[in-house]
């Protein structure tokens, strides 16, 4: 019985605590009613698509200069990451 009571108190307590920390952070753009978080997701998606296209263009460019698939692909990835302003995925990460 004691155990049950303790569990009930703990559950209610933690539940209230987590609810208390919930921050409503959905900012609505007054101009068109679009959420800012959705907007930034759209921008990221567009950026990703543009960079993917850039990667394919670079791949085609390198292949037409005589590079094999392996050579062209790795260089085209570098173009993709430069476009996304991300360091190359193959950079050495510190141990």
């Amino acid at each position: 019985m004691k155990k049950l009571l303790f569990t009930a108190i703990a559950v209610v307590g933690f539940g209230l605590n987590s609810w208390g920390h919930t921050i409503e952070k959905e900012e609505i753009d007054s101009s068109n009613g679009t959420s800012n978080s959705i907007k930034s997701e759209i921008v990221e998606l567009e950026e990703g698509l543009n960079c993917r296209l850039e990667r394919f263009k670079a791949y085609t460019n390198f292949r037409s200069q005589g590079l094999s698939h392996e050579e062209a692909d790795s260089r085209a990835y570098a173009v993709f990451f430069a476009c996304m302003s991300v360091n190359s995925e193959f950079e050495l990460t510190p141990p």
Partner: protein
Amino acid sequence: MNRFFIIIFIILPYVSTAQINTYVFTYGMQIISDERHESIVNKSEYGAIIHDLFVKAQNNQDKIKFELIVQDSITHFCINDLRLNNSFTGYFGEILTLKDSIYKNPYKVKNITIVNPKNLTWEITSDTLRIGGYLCIKAKGTELVTYQNKTFYNPIYAWFCPDIPISVGPNGFCGLPGAILKLQKGNSIFGLINFRKESRPMLVASNFFQKKKITQELYHQKLEEQISNFEND
């Protein structure tokens, strides 16, 4: 029947942990500039990015190592750390070679294995080079790169050692009457660091046989389709 299972039960641990004679070749990497690279850097719109990548790759080259494991007619080739910048090494993923075929697992495409026959022909020259005390002979191969109705002939140079009479080499290149101790293709030079014989458990190559198998031609064809579809959308 019960006796059969008992025997299997007794033998299985010994079979599964059996050690077999293995040759282990460790290769280092040197990244060099060549005509094609210079042309891309100077003429392509991506020149600056490629130049930066090249400088980073050269700075990292000493950290890159490759291991070639040879057990009878089976070899397995892989890089020591995939997180290293391997853009100019020509490394595409781990490679398994069997008697007649080469299996490549591209590390960027998880669900396929590219299978090709061993069909590279070599022209053996009279040039020699001593590598770590081994006398090596130079051979030249040609990689045919066909793209949009244009064909390019990219040379591959290999220095093989007849004193190590196993037909193996780095990055899937083999087919010479001796182990390849040095190989130059494009911007990359694979060079032997050490070579040892040891006992190891039998190679487990299940990750090459569980995936969808595809030929290099079909793989390129699919890629081209993907590119044109993406550009048209």
